């Protein structure tokens, strides 16, 4: 239990503020988009969700808030927007934004650096798979091949490619789970 007196949780440690909402937008749009893209994996949805975050958050923003506060608010808005997206799209929380860990997307000097662990993680997943499983996933997700192109490249039928992809993805998901967050 908390004992003793009150604990001052609110500290003014950063009085760096945005001058106007355009500054808020310019400073965060790239970072927010990258975060959304990492969570949905396609440009169309990432653009829509980024738009929704700004549409929801910008109007009521108090510009006297510090940059840190504004980013935290944007991130929490993004968390809710993404959760709603998956509820509508699949009825399952496929991916999520964790304010504890994903704040780095908005606070680090370059969101590119934060997102740069995606290739490393993908490599770990792929390296744990048998050759044919790894190859079908590389062709589809990294080399942007259609299922027909992937089948042709591997010398198998389209039907076999679909089955192979499904099994490969299932095994990759298990590897992904073992790797943890």
């Amino acid at each position, binding site marked *: 239990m908390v004992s003793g007196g009150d604990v001052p949780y609110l500290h003014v440690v950063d009085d760096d503020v945005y001058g106007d909402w355009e500054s808020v937008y310019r400073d965060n749009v790239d970072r927010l988009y990258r975060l959304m893209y990492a969570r949905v994996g396609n440009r169309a949805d990432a653009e829509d969700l980024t738009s929704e975050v700004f549409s929801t958050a910008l109007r009521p923003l108090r510009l006297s808030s510090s940059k840190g*506060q504004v980013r935290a608010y944007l991130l929490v808005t993004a968390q809710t927007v993404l959760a709603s997206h998956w509820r509508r799209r699949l009825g399952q929380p*496929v991916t999520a934004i964790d304010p504890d860990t994903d704040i780095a997307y908005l606070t680090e000097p370059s969101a590119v650096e934060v997102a740069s662990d995606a290739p490393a993680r993908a490599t770990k997943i792929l390296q744990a798979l048998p050759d044919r499983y790894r190859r079908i996933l590389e062709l589809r997700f990294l080399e942007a091949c259609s299922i027909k192109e992937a089948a042709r490249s591997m010398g198998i039928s389209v039907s076999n490619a679909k089955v192979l992809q499904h099994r490969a993805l299932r095994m990759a998901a298990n590897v992904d789970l073992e790797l943890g967050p």
Partner: protein
Amino acid sequence: MSNRRLLAFVDALATGRRPKRFRAQPEDAEMLRTAIALRAARPGEAAPTEPFVEGLFQRLSEQAKSPSMPEPRPARRLRVRTVLVAAAAAGLLVAGTAVVTEQLHHPAPTSAAAHVPEGSQLRTGTFQTTDGQVLGQIVAYRGHPSWVFMNVNAPQYDGTIECMLQVDNGATVAFGTFTVHGGAGQFSKALGEIDVSQLRGAKLVSSTGSAVAAATFAR
């Protein structure tokens, strides 16, 4: 047929198209999470395009010029906004503030929706167990209406938790009950007649009556 829809979803992801909705199963979600992780690793596609950045900027500029206009819709689809959005906005206010106070240690006045908090309108506390383990946060916001929001992360706990608010005169008020699923839960509720400035702390009590955690509001 879930497999066919799952395959279509994966195919859309792989080829960079917008996937269509379907009712996924939990095991589907695991596969799709991995598919997204693989897709997101494709070089050169994680950055926004200039037309998108500028187009959104223009739409937001128009929104800013017309205070009475409804929020602009995303470019590709109409969003269904319900009353829940208003409630969520109030939740965002305090959730956002919890992030601020706990993660960034920045000052209080993060704002949301029509309820823009001032520093003096927000009071926060951290739920801790008797052995000092942090279980969550609580934020009280004085406004119209006044709200309390709390989140709890109590690993391996499933069940109901009752929140008791403590006020300055020593009285304890049963504030509400919420459910924790898989160790996680959150709860928000209007404060009603309780004055935020009179709040001293909060206690969480399990369904068996045992104390789970307590928080003291910072002044």
